[in-house]
């Protein structure tokens, strides 16, 4: 079942088109930086971008930081929102369930497929960023620099990059869980995707509002950018662990709700 869902997802032209579009922005940014040599001042613009002109090895992280606030969540919401609702609107859901695929199994397989999509996408963004960083910029793999200003060994930098990629993937799971839950509520994939995005926009907006500060620690997007903390010396674990715990709670609750809804639902599509 899982293999079937992965085949469906990765044999679909749209999946690869989404990933390609996602990579277009970091490529454009890299080209502009090289042509103009105008890096944002430290502390402005996406994290890491100010440093890439000095060390191209940081570009994978800059690329992730560029796509993280909007593009990556949109891509994840599109794929996860489509998972059940897309089958329903195409009419294939009734055939899958009468086959019988089993409702819980189908939901789990869809979740794993979305998870695979998140990982593949994040890795491709990081990989494309690495290629860009080492070809377009001066890469100094020997002396990586932490955000705190101390130098890191290449092995250290590599390890921290992998951890950061993992953290970004975990952050995206929260988006996926929202979209998957909405996907079991409606027969319209667009509705499910927009629902998940509405949650993220609301969360980002509330985060900037002082009056919302009591609930700020519980907003799903609150700790997204904490992956930067992997590059402080020493690693600043506080927000990272909170971010993972928060995503864990959201994923757990939403998946339980999705399961409860989907397994007791009348399939009339």
């Amino acid at each position, binding site marked *: *079942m899982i*293999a*079937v869902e992965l*085949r*469906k997802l990765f*044999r*679909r*032209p749209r999946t690869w088109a989404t990933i390609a579009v996602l990579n277009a922005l970091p490529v454009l940014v890299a080209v502009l930086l090289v042509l103009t040599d105008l890096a944002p001042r430290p502390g402005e613009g996406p994290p890491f971008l100010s440093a890439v002109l000095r060390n191209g090895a940081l570009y994978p992280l800059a690329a992730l930081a560029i796509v993280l606030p909007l593009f990556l969540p949109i891509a994840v919401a599109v794929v996860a929102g489509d998972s059940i609702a897309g089958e329903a609107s*195409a*009419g*294939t859901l*009734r*055939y*899958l*369930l*009468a*086959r*019988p*695929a*089993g409702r819980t199994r189908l939901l789990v397989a869809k979740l794993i497929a979305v998870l695979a999509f998140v990982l593949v996408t994040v890795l491709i963004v990081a990989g494309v960023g690495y290629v860009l960083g080492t070809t377009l910029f001066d890469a100094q793999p020997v002396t990586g620099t932490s955000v705190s200003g101390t130098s890191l060994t290449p092995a250290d930098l590599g390890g921290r990059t992998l951890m950061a990629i993992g953290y970004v993937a975990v952050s995206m799971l929260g988006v996926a869980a929202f979209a998957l839950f909405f996907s079991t509520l409606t027969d319209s994939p667009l509705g499910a995707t927009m629902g998940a995005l509405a949650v993220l926009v609301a969360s980002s907006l509330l985060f900037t509002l002082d009056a919302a500060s009591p609930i700020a620690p519980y907003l799903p997007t609150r700790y997204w950018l904490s992956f930067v903390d992997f590059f402080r010396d020493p690693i600043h674990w506080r927000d990272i662990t909170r971010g993972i715990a928060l995503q864990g709670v959201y994923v757990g609750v939403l998946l339980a709700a999705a399961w409860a809804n989907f397994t*007791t639902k*009348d*399939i*009339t599509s």
Partner: protein
Amino acid sequence: MSGVIATRGLVKRYGRLSAVDGIDLDVRAGDVYGFLGANGSGKTTTVRMLLGLVLPTSGEIDLLGARMPRAGRRVLPRVGALIEGPAHYGHLSGRENLALLDASGPGARRRTRRRRIDEVLEQVGLGGVGRRPVKAYSLGMRQRLGLAGALLRRPELLVLDEPTNGLDPQGISEVRELLLDLHRTGTTVFLSSHLLAEVEQLCSRVGVLDRGRLVLQEQLATLTAPTGATVVHTPTPDRVRAALDGRVTSMDGERVVVRGEDPAEVNALLVGAGIPVTGLALQRPTLEEVVLAATGTSTDRVESR
């Protein structure tokens, strides 16, 4: 005869509306069961409940002797279904669609998958379809592919909802032959349709649904059994009435209905009286007459109150 589909007091309510209102289906092994009903009479809801897609409000369903929807994982692999038109992934070929569907559930051997797909495609007349994506298929081809999906695991029971939808007359006749072939090799067929002619040509048993209630469930042969009257066609109906005094039950233009279940005897009397006879037949009710008598007005009419 064991029950292949048996429901007891099956009810599905949506709010205050009863879509299915306490039906007791009884489909036996070897039947070709015609499930008739107007649009909106609850056919599709019933079919979906049989397959575990819609959960009943109350009542019981036994499918191949096991309680649904609990036994779905065990029983449904032995059932082939076509539910409200075919549905496929448009960007994949027919073959790939069948392979994905086959791999999505239990009870299908991977080793035989390729051979089974080739066989069913041949069977439904799509043997030479190649690698074309399904979005380039015509409606009739999609319907055939849907049927192929239902046949993929050589099911003991076929549940088909409007299987000839979108097919041209040749296609309809091919599908009918295919279903009769499958029936001969032991498949039980449950055919949901609003096409009376289709059911009359195919089915051995008929159930008629009207506004969520099963108003009729009987052998087709019993329903359309001779009524004990003979229909005579003649240019001179008045002379028939004179010759067969008291036996004429109705007259309608050149068509005269005469009591008597032996056309030969009626014919002999008429010819003896020198009355020209242009047509002679045993009177049988058509399925349409039976169904119309059993049901009320069409359910998609919305009357003012």
